[in-house]
């Protein structure tokens, strides 16, 4: 369990992080969502120890994070790159060795990763001769070479070709399945929605919402309902206590509290057959728009 506790950080006049707290559970994939400049990169850099917080702390399983913990994190910074003139395998192995691996272990791990990423045949080519997609795959190898037991990935999908995206997805899932805490940020809300167990939404340096994806959906979609029936449903708009009615397909979406919604269903059943009824979950994009308002 990776925990960020009351972390604040200021750059000159700008408060980049303001009393930020959230946890990344072991074995859970946590999506970190926010607009540009919201504080995601700063928070990740503080977890990795590249930046120091003005106040607050980062803990691992309840104790302060130390150098060894940080070394076991696989980190992909938002602004990333490799030495253009170094050979791919040589470079990935070098980064593994910097992380503390022996030469042999680093080379073995590099060979395995490049193979998995399907760029093994480019091992001895300089990075600058690779296509952008292949450079990104080399970048993934660089983040994973030291066999991390936790992942912190800043915009891991940006700039990746579709195969790269699938690889990162499978890596994230494998890591979480193995019990590692996984934190990643992305602008692609649909990807986040599909992948993550937990969510942290940040805006202007403050955490606006945090928790499991399903809880957040329930919390933010508590009074939305969807009712489908082949018959006429235009009467729903004029029912007492019902607001925001929208026609959608063969049914309607509407807002109402729980007893009112039950009343609506009863009337619908009396009027004719009902094909479906249930709470309407908002999409992540809707939740995001609502909490950062």
């Amino acid at each position: 369990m990776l925990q960020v506790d009351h972390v604040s950080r200021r750059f000159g006049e700008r408060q980049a992080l303001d009393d930020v707290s959230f946890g990344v559970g072991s074995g859970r994939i946590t999506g970190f969502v926010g607009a540009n400049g919201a504080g995601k990169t700063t928070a990740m850099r503080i977890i990795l120890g590249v930046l120091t917080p003005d106040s607050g702390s980062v803990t691992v399983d309840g104790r302060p994070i130390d150098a060894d913990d940080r070394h076991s994190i696989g980190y992909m910074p938002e602004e990333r790159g490799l030495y253009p003139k170094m050979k791919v395998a040589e470079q990935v192995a070098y980064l593994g060795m910097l992380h503390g691996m022996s030469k042999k272990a680093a080379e073995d791990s590099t060979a395995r990763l490049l193979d998995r990423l399907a760029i093994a045949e480019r091992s001895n080519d300089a990075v600058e001769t690779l296509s952008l997609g292949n450079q990104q795959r080399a970048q993934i190898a660089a983040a994973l070479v030291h066999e991390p037991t936790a992942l912190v990935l800043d915009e891991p999908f940006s700039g990746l070709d579709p195969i790269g995206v699938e690889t990162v997805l499978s890596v994230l899932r494998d890591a979480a399945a193995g019990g590692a805490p996984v934190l990643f940020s992305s602008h692609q809300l649909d990807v986040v929605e599909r992948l993550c167990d937990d969510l942290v939404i940040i805006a202007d340096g403050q955490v606006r919402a945090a928790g499991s994806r399903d809880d957040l959906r329930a919390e933010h979609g508590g009074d939305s309902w969807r009712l489908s029936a082949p018959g006429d449903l235009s009467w729903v708009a004029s029912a007492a206590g019902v607001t925001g009615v929208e026609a959608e397909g063969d049914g309607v979406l509407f807002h109402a509290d729980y007893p009112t919604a039950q009343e609506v269903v009863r009337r619908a059943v009396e009027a004719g057959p009902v094909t479906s009824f249930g709470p309407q979950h908002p999409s992540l994009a809707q939740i995001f728009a609502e909490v950062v308002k």
Partner: protein
Amino acid sequence: MTARSVPSAAWLVARREVTMRLRSKAFLVSTGILLLAVLAGIVIGGIVSATASDPTVAAVGTAQAAADRATGLEVRHVDSVAEARVLVKKGTVDAAIVPSTKTPLGYEVIADSSPPESVIAQLSVTPPVTLLDPPSQNGLLTYLVALGFGLVFFVSSITFGSTIAQSVIEEKQTRVVEILMTAIPVRALLAGKVLGNSILAFAQIAAIALLTVGGLLATGQTSVIGLIGPALIWFVVFFAFGFILLAALFSAAASLVSRQEDAAAVTTPLTMLVMVPYLLVILFNDNALVLGIMSYVPFSAPVGMPMRIFLGTAEWWEPILSLVILLISTLLVIILGARIYSNSLLRMGGRVKLKDALAR
């Protein structure tokens, strides 16, 4: 897996710096050219000094006595004026001394295209001269040694200073730096870069020193080795530490910018700084006061102190004191440089203000 210690991480970084540099053709070619230039200087010096032996003259008849009297002449006795003229024309001798009734001296000098100054000097009577403050070293040699120390210091500092600046900016520009910073402490990264480039610079200087000594031995200029040997050894020692200081300055300055195009803006003041000792030693290699100050100021000590040792004007303890001053300043600069470096590495885009880089 545990984190690497700072020295072990720094050593890995240093090794990468050295390997990548040795793989660069531009580096190998420029080093080759520098070494060839040094070798050429020694060989040309050797040829010039070898031909500076006593001039040979052909002497005929009654003029032979005058030629034999002069001390610095290689005299060849020939039978006729015609024969002497042929030898002069062929260049076998520098001049001929032949009998003449036209002058009270009783002989005249025949030369090819210009009056043979060295021969005339030997035949002339000069008054004895007493110097109150005789120079301890020959003036031309002093100038050449000053030029040599100054130039080698200047060229090596600029070459490796810009190399380390480029290497720092490359890591920022390619954005690899953040990955490096999460793998090892920033001070290990800085130490490794300074160490790697200092090893290269030191190896180059040592190669030049060895080549100089070897070249002088091979061309038989052994007396010169005795004259410049101690100064040369001190130069190498001073340069080793002086370069570490410069390398720390260059890397701190380079970390302020994020693009190679902006490198010149931050390294120019440092380039000026290393140009100063070079100019001073050439202009003031006979000025005791200027050399005295130079030999203690950390930037110019690698040139100033060896120069004074060569001239024999430094007491035995002076190079040691100067070296201690240099070591302390190097240490301070490294601490300051590390601060600027670690504060600037993640600031991409425009140039970081020095004030901001020193804060926190």
